Structures are given as C-alpha cells and as structure tokens.
C-alpha cells in the first residue's frame, strides 16, 4: 500500500489497484481514487504551476472547486482534455495525465522567473505594463502574453467522442445529494411525484462521505446512506450521479451535464462521453452545501497547504493522509475535527493554530486528549519549502498587535477560513441575497423562480440541522405541488456543530507590499492586488474584479469571492453589503464544448436538405453548394474540367440544344379559397384579377417598406387556386410573412396557404429542343405556341406521371418546369435524361442557371437586391400594378426616400478591357478623386458569357438608369477597371428565342 494510504479508512477499494501516469511517471492508486487522492497517497503534492507567476502548486481542495490542481488527461488519439481538475478526475487503468504551465518540467520551470518579476504583474498589469512604446505591442508584448497566457494547451485533433443531449421533465429537481438533498428527496417523493436528485460526485452522500462518525437515527452514517439511497430508488426517485447542474435558467429550466465515460477504462459502444440534460422542473430544491474558504496569508499557496475540510475528505473518503506532520491553521471549529480525525489516523498533528482568542472547551479538551498543542489568538505570516511546505510561521496577536513570529515544522498546513454557502445556482435565478453579519457571508433571500434552498447552502451547519432542513424543504415543494407529505425528523449523534470567525487577509508583521497572500489561486491574485485596485480608483466590486481578475478564473471564484470582498470592503472602508457581490454566471463548473454541441456536430451539425434528384447528381459527379438549408448541384464537371470550363459547356449546350436542371428546392405555396385572387392582389405588387386560369405571371413581393423581398412565377390553376413559387432560401420566410398578413391584418379573407415545396419535384427543361423532347412525353396538352404559349400552366401527365406543367423560362430559351409528386422526381429526371440523349441533353447546376439568367437580366433576390432595392430600382416597374387600391409595399414605394433622385439602380456593366469583375466590388464615377473615394454602387453579379462573347456584370449604380453608355470605374487592389453602363438584358432582348 502507498505510503500515505491508511488501512481501514475511506470508501476506495484497496483490493483493486489502478495504475496511471502523471507526467510520464507511473503511479499506483486504487479503485475509487481521483488523480489527486492517488497522487497524495503517493506523497505527491506538487501537481501544477500557477497561471501568472508559475508558482508551484498542489491540490488545495478535494472537489470541483479546486483552483490549482489542473491536469491534462489523455486517452489515445483525439482524446485529450486540458484543465481537468485532478480532484474530480477518477483514475482508471492506463489513464495518462500531465501537469500544466511548466517548461521544461514541473520541478524546474523557466516561467517561474515571472514570480521574481511579480512587480510587473500586479493588478491591472494588462492595462499598464504593455502600453508603451506603442510599436512594441505587436512584436514584443502580444507574443509574450500569448505565450504566457492561457491555462493548459488546446487539443489539436478532432474529438472522436460522441456527445448527447436530452430533455427531462420532472416535478421536483433536487440539486445536491448531500444530507439535505437526500432528506428533501425523501420528503418530496410522495404520491407519484417525479423526483430527480442530482449530484456531481460519483456517488450520493455529500458531506456524509467525509463524516463517517455521525450516527443518523441510530445508524452509522454510511449504513444510513446506503439504506437511504436504496429507499429513494424504491420510491421512484431518479438519482443521477456524475451530473453537474451547470446553470439555472428561466422558469425552472436547469442545464445539467452528465459525464458518462471519463471514469471508465474501456469506452462502451454507443455511449456518449457527456450528455447535456435540459430539465424543466415544477419545483427545484438547491442543496449544494457550502465551500470552505482559505485563509489569506503570505505563502498560503505552497504545495501542502490545503483546506482542512478537504484533508478530512481525503482521509475519510479516500483513506489518504495528506501529511504525517500536519499543522492546522483555522478560524472555524470545523478544522479542529479535521485535526482530530488525522491524529486518530496516525498523523502527528504539530499544532492547532486558531486565530480566535477563545474556543469551545470540548474542542480544547479533545485536543488535549490527543496531545495536540493549541495556539489561540495567533496569525500566520509565512511558509517555507520549495516544492512542498516544510514550516509554517505563526505569531501571537495581542490587542491588534502582531508579536514575534516563530516557525512550526510540518509537512502540511490544513487551513480553514470558515465556509461560504454555495449560492451559484440561486444567483442564476436572479435571486436576491442578504448579508448576515454573524456568519459574515451572504445568504439567499428571495427568488423569482419556484425554488427553495436547503441546508448548508443557506448557512446552516451540522448534519442534523441540514437533514431536518432538507426534509422541511422537501415537504414545502411537495405541498406547493398539491401534495400532503408527512413530517420527518432526524436525530444525529456524533454530529459536529461549529462556528467561526471571518477574516480579510491575516494580520502580519511583514511589509504588506512584499506579502504574497493569495486570494484567487488560479488567477494568481493577491490581497495586495485587491488593495492596489482600490487605491487606483476602482470602487465597484465589479471593477475590482475585472481589474484584478479576482474570481474570473475557471473556478469562478468559488473560494475567492468572499475573501476578495472582505479585503476590498476593508480597503474601501465600507461594509460588505454596501460593496456588493459580483455575479455568479453559468456554468457552475467548466463545461466542454462537446456537451453544448451535443448531437450537432459533423454531418449532424445542421440539417442538410437534399432533393429527390440529389442522388443522381452525386452519382454524376456534381459539385454541390449550400443554398439556405439545401445542398444544390452547383455544376457537373467532366473529367479534366474546372468550374469555369464546366459552366461554359453547360451554358453553351443549353442555349444550343437542351439543358436539364433540378429546380425542386424552389419554394411552393398553394393559395386556395374564394378570396385567393384578392389575397394575391394585396400581397404581390402585380395585378392578378385578369390572369386567366391556365396562365402564369412573374410575381414580385415587397415589404410594406417598398423593398423587394422575394419573387417567383405564379400560376393560376383555377379561379380559386394559385400555385405560388418563391426563391429557394425565401420559402419559409415568405410563407411566414403571408400567414402574418392573413392572420392578423386580413382575417376576414377566405383563403388558406399550404406549403407544397416538398410535395413536388421540379425539373426544368430549357433550350431550343425543350418542347420537342417534352412534347412526346406529355399527355393532355399540345406543346405549341398557340395551345400552350409561354407563361402557361396546366395539370397533365408527363411520362405517365401526374404533373403540373409550367411553360416558363429563367434562361431566355424555350423553357418548361415539370412538377411531379416528389417521390417520382428521380424517375421523371431519368426518363427525361434518357429521352433527351438524342438532343445531347446537358445537366446543369446553379452556376449555369445564374449565368443564363444574368444574360437575360433576370434578378436573383438577395444577390442583385439587398433589402434596400425597390421594383423601380431593379428596373421592374412593369411588375407593379398601377390601378390596385393597395398592396403590400404600395404606400412604402411612395416614401420620400424611395422617390428621391439618385437611388442606386440595377444596370448592366461591360468592362472596357473585357476582364471579369469581382462580385461585391465597389464602383466610383471619378477614379482620380482623392481617397476615400465616394462609392456609388457595387457589382452584384458577374460572369463570363459565351453567348455575349465577353464577361458581363450586373451592378447597382447611383442614378444608373439615366447613365446608359457612361463609364464607371471599379478600383481594385492592383488597378482600376473601367466599365460601360448598359441595359441589364445582354441576350435576345426581343425574346425571339422563346418561340417554339
């Protein structure tokens, strides 16, 4: 057995040794150990270096509040986690751990030079030290800070683990499975109430795990605990361990993170590493207990200096003596019991040093029985020992005067500055706090949530008191849920009542300017830093916090907040409640990104919508691009083709013969009802009354501000039914907008909207041979200019499939869009593909579609418009109904700004040097004006055009419609390009090609 393991103590299984490594060296622990308890069992206190000064540090606590003992853990490729608290990481066979913030080794660290240069790193050093000279910032200061800053190292490989999340609904959620939480669960588990009891530790019990001496209702604490856990399970209480309540959100929603595999030597299949629980509880009981505070004195951070309660936990829960010659330094009774437990386990307690003048007689007697020296009315003024404490310097204090110091040799200092109720989650609820002068701490007062707080987290002390309080609170919440639970009372023998006093930093006979009395261990903030902050003008505790970084480390000030407040209040000459407490924010303990991401990573990061034809595109080598949530075929390169070559080939083939395009992603809305036409008249800028069934019209949708929102071709299928299409990305937005107007402005209209986007697969055929191909496959209509002219629609049959056929063109060629029920989409596509081989049919993607439409000057909403473009700006005044009484956007179009001259208007651009412009490039009128130039517009679309024989572009230009033929300039990094303003229609302005 390891040197510091005590036979017969602890809840660990000494019959099951576990080997792990720390900084490459192998250590033996036992099943049930944490990294910290196992290292301490081996006599290792030095576990890390501090963040700023690189001072040697050891574990100061035994739980999740640990600020110092942060390690990296590794489990093969990709599974590396920095900043894991050694006090909570359970060991397993083969676990690899490493210390942090050290180079080249933990024992010999170069960064420790910072410790000697500590004058540079005092409060606010970020703001002061690195300010001058200015040009040093990039070259010297920033690289230095970046090299020195940060805890641990970020993982560099992709995390192979799986993370999960679930929602959970319960009547009562109890946070903390210590005595008060257990009692609350017992009381609340009545009459079918769904009760969930959650604890961050691997097992329930809380403080009972560290106090086996107690006798609860006549049973030894651990026997009582085991029986109680079984009883609760029998009552249907769900007990969730290794699960941390990280945040308390509105209306009793609590975020919890469950760790499922970090303690296991083998990773089970299909099991997530962590799971985020989003819990909605009817009532919440917060029973998070209290956290012990350190005492603030010079050298209080040396490895071996730790909290007395934690030493008691290491002994009673893990069977580990943290030292064989400890000295106890305390301001609270609780540490006396720690001293007794260690003495009874074989440690030679060197002394109990108490800052108070008087202490309870029974404690003095118990110390005397064990032969422990007692020093009352003493302060501590220093420690020695390079990598481990070997002496504590103490001084008597009389009438406020610090007397001569002397040293006590030791191998550990067990300190207690009293206890702070854990108010973190309570504070998340925006609960109000009240200052308690006797306890010198904040206690919970009111909360807007359905929440009560129980036990030590509301300032109670002793197992009997918190058990009975828990039971009372459990009854309270059950009653609030309409139940009538029985009352319960617990009697505890060998309980350990206690009180204490609270300090700012301990008085010293040293120069306070030289003292390194740490308040926040993780951020290396000392009492001196806090006083300096106040001296330099910080008045608000929030400013003091930010200036010094006190409480801003990953432990979120669990140990340092109240000590920091006491010191700041003293420096300000105010009472603590006048200074106030900084805000606790979620998460309660550091939480992995994986837990927040849950399932939403990799392929499941977000929805990727695919059409029914997507598979064909993939099999035929398509390159895809995302459009909204959809992925769409972008272009179809043949062997050796780059994007430009593929797109040019697709464009030429379509204009020459026949192109086929998957347009299924277009939004589709069925507008149906007696008032359908009235609704369309009010919604779209165009007039619809005279559109006959069987005909289509291009529709333009504006907002009430007059700006273009969306567009699409709309077919009237019957008097009362319109088939509306929208842009791919705008489908959901447009339907929402229409529903908004219909439900709230025009509820009297008898018309309904149904999304049919996914009801239909839509295949577009374009090119001189489109009608020839389709004509042989269509039943129910003859495809001639007379029987089915451009802008017609019909319900018919295509290749035996029920179809809605539209004769429309987004290319300027003869064009059709065939809609068939979605699942038939691929069959339709393949049928057309086969039949189209005789015409050299060419599949094209969105890029070719963009080029072909730009050649015709058809806009893409969101590319050629940006939310500030009116139909008139876009040159589409023809789409605005002039004789309608109203439509959405009509009044907006008459706004002063929208009718003023000088608006940016959509025009075509042809570059003088025939170069292709960059989309987004800014435009100026005078290229010789001084910088900054007046920008008068930008390029919205730009492509190479084979049909035109040169690159073409669309652009928004100030007053562009009146500047046809004029030259504008596009300054680029290397040169300025001149371009002529032209019409937006580059190909076939007479629309001759639309004729069959």
């Amino acid at each position, binding site marked *: 057995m390891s040197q510091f393991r005590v036979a017969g103590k602890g809840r660990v299984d000494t019959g099951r040794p576990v080997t792990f490594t720390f900084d490459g060296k192998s250590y033996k622990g036992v099943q049930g150990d944490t990294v910290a308890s196992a290292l301490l069992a081996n006599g290792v206190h030095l576990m890390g270096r501090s963040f700023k000064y690189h001072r040697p540090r050891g574990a100061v606590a035994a739980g999740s509040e640990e600020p110092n003992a942060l390690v990296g853990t590794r489990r093969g490729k990709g599974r590396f986690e920095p900043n894991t608290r050694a006090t909570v990481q359970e060991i397993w066979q083969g676990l690899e751990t490493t210390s942090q913030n050290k180079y080249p080794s933990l024992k010999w660290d170069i960064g420790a030079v910072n410790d000697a240069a500590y004058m540079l790193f005092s409060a606010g050093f970020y703001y002061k030290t690195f300010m001058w000279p200015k040009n040093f910032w990039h070259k010297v200061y920033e690289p230095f800070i970046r090299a020195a800053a940060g805890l641990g190292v970020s993982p560099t490989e992709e995390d192979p683990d799986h993370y999960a999340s679930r929602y959970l609904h319960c009547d009562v959620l109890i946070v903390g499975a210590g005595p008060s939480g257990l009692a609350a669960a017992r009381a609340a588990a009545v009459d079918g109430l769904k009760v969930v009891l959650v604890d961050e530790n691997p097992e329930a019990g809380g403080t009972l795990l560290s106090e086996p001496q107690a006798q609860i209702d006549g049973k030894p604490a651990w026997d009582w605990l085991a029986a109680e856990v079984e009883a609760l399970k029998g009552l249907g209480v769900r007990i969730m361990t290794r699960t941390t309540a990280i945040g308390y*959100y*509105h*209306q009793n*929603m609590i975020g919890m993170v469950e760790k499922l595999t970090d303690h296991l030597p083998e990773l089970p299949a299909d099991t997530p590493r962590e799971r985020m629980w*989003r819990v*909605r509880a009817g009532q919440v009981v917060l029973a998070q207990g209290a956290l012990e505070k350190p005492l603030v004195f010079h050298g209080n951070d040396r490895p071996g200096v730790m909290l007395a309660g934690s030493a008691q936990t290491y002994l009673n829960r893990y069977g580990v003596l943290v030292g064989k010659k400890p000295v106890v330094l305390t301001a609270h009774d609780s540490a006396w019991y720690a001293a007794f437990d260690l003495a009874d386990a074989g440690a030679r307690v060197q002394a109990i040093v108490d800052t108070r003048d008087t202490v309870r007689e029974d404690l003095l007697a118990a110390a005397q029985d064990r032969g422990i020296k007692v020093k009352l009315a003493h302060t501590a003024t220093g420690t020695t020992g390079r990598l481990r404490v070997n002496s504590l310097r103490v001084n008597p204090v009389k009438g406020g005067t610090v007397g001569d110091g002397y040293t006590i040799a030791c191998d550990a200092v067990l300190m207690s500055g009293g206890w702070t109720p854990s108010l973190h989650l309570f504070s998340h609820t925006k609960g109000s706090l009240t200052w308690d002068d006797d306890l010198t701490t904040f206690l919970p007062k*009111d909360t*807007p949530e359905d929440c009560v707080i129980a036990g030590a987290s509301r300032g109670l002390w002793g197992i009997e008191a918190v058990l009975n309080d828990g039971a009372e609170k459990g009854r309270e919440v059950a009653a609030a849920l309409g139940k009538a639970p029985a009352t319960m009372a617990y009697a505890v023998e060998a309980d350990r009542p206690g009180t204490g006093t609270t300090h700012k930093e301990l008085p010293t006979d040293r120069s306070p300017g030289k003292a390194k009395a740490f308040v926040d261990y993780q951020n290396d903030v000392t009492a001196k830093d806090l006083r300096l902050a106040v001296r330099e003008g910080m008045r608000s505790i929030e400013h003091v916090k930010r200036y010094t970084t006190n409480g801003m480390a990953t432990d979120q000030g669990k140990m340092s907040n109240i000590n920091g407040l006491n010191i700041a209040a003293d420096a300000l000459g105010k009472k603590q409640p006048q200074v106030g407490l900084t805000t606790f924010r979620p998460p309660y303990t550091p939480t992995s990104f994986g837990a927040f991401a849950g399932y939403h990573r990799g392929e499941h990061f977000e929805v990727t919508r695919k059409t029914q034809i997507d598979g064909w595109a993939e099999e035929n080598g398509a390159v895809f691009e995302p459009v909204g949530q959809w992925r769409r075929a972008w272009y179809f390169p043949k062997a050796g083709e780059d994007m430009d070559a593929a797109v040019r080939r697709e464009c030429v083939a379509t204009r020459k013969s026949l192109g086929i395009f998957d347009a299924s992603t277009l939004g589709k809305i069925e507008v149906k009802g007696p008032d359908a036409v009235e609704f369309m008249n009010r919604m779209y800028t165009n007039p619809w009354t005279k559109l006959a069934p069987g005909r289509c019209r291009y529709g333009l949708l504006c907002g*009430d*501000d007059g700006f273009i929102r969306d567009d699409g071709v709309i077919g009237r299928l019957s008097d009362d039914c319109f088939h509306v299409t929208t842009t791919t990305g705008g489908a959901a937005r447009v339907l*929402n907008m229409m*529903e*908004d107007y219909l*439900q*709230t*402005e025009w*509820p009297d209209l008898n018309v309904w909207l149904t999304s049919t986007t996914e009801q239909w697969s839509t295949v577009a055929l374009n090119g001189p041979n489109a009608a020839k191909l389709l004509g042989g496959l269509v039943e129910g209509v003859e495809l001639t200019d007379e029987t089915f002219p451009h802008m017609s629609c019909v319900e018919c049959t295509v290749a035996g499939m029920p179809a809605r056929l539209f004769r429309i063109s987004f290319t300027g060629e003869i064009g059709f869009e065939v809609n068939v029920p979605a699942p038939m989409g691929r069959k339709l596509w393949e049928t057309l593909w086969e039949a189209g081989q005789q015409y050299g049919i060419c599949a094209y993607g969105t890029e070719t579609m963009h080029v072909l439409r730009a050649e015709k000057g058809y806009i893409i909403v969101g590319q050629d418009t940006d939310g500030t473009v009116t139909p008139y700006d876009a040159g589409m005044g023809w789409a605005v109904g002039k004789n309608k*009484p*109203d439509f959405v956007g*009509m*009044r*907006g179009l*008459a*706004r*002063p700004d929208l009718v003023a001259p000088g608006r940016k208007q959509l025009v075509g651009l042809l570059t003088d040097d025939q170069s292709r412009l960059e989309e987004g490039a800014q435009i100026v009128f005078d290229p010789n004006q001084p910088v900054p130039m007046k920008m008068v517009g930008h390029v919205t679309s730009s492509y190479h055009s084979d049909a035109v024989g040169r690159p073409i572009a669309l652009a928004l230009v100030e007053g562009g419609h009146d500047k046809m033929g004029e030259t504008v300039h596009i300054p680029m990094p290397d040169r300025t390009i001149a371009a002529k303003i032209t019409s937006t229609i580059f190909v076939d302005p007479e629309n001759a090609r639309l004729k069959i």
Partner: protein
Amino acid sequence: MLLIHCPYCEETLPEAEFTYAGQAHVIRPENPSGQTDDQWEEFLFIRANPKGPHYERWRHFHGCGRFFNAVRDTVSDKFLTTYKAGAPRPDLSSLTEGLK
C-alpha cells in the same frame, strides 16, 4: 428557455416551439395610401421599447401556427398573459396586480 401559453392550443409549452413576431397592436391602416409620410413612418418603424410590460406578438410556429399576442415584462422576462389575435389589449393594472 421560457414557457409560453398558447391561447389557441390552451397549453403552456417551451419557447422552442414559438417564434417572436415583434410589437403587438401595430395596426396596418385601412387605406395606406391615405397616410402621410409621418404616419407611415410611425407605422413602419417606430416601436415602443419599454422597461416593463411589453405588448408583443408570438407565433406558435412548431405548433398550431397561430400568431397571438402577449404581455411580457422585459425586466423579469415573465409573461403576464397571452391572448388571441384580434382580442382587445388587456388592462395592465389587472395584470400587474398579483405580482411580487
């Protein structure tokens, strides 16, 4: 995440089923073309930004699909009430009475 009572479904449900839809009781004029520029500006752009009870619209998007109105306290983030579209604006004093 808030809990929101849908006045159509008559159920109190997680916020994730709902979408926000701006200030309530902003009524589109019967005859927009008869509006002055100032009136139209008021309708389009000018919104209350109260610290306290705010009349606003929500839509039960992943549910019944209805737009409805609500009064939410922007300080506490609590809903004081929700009511159907078209129902009159509830009296604030009756809503804030029972509050802490």
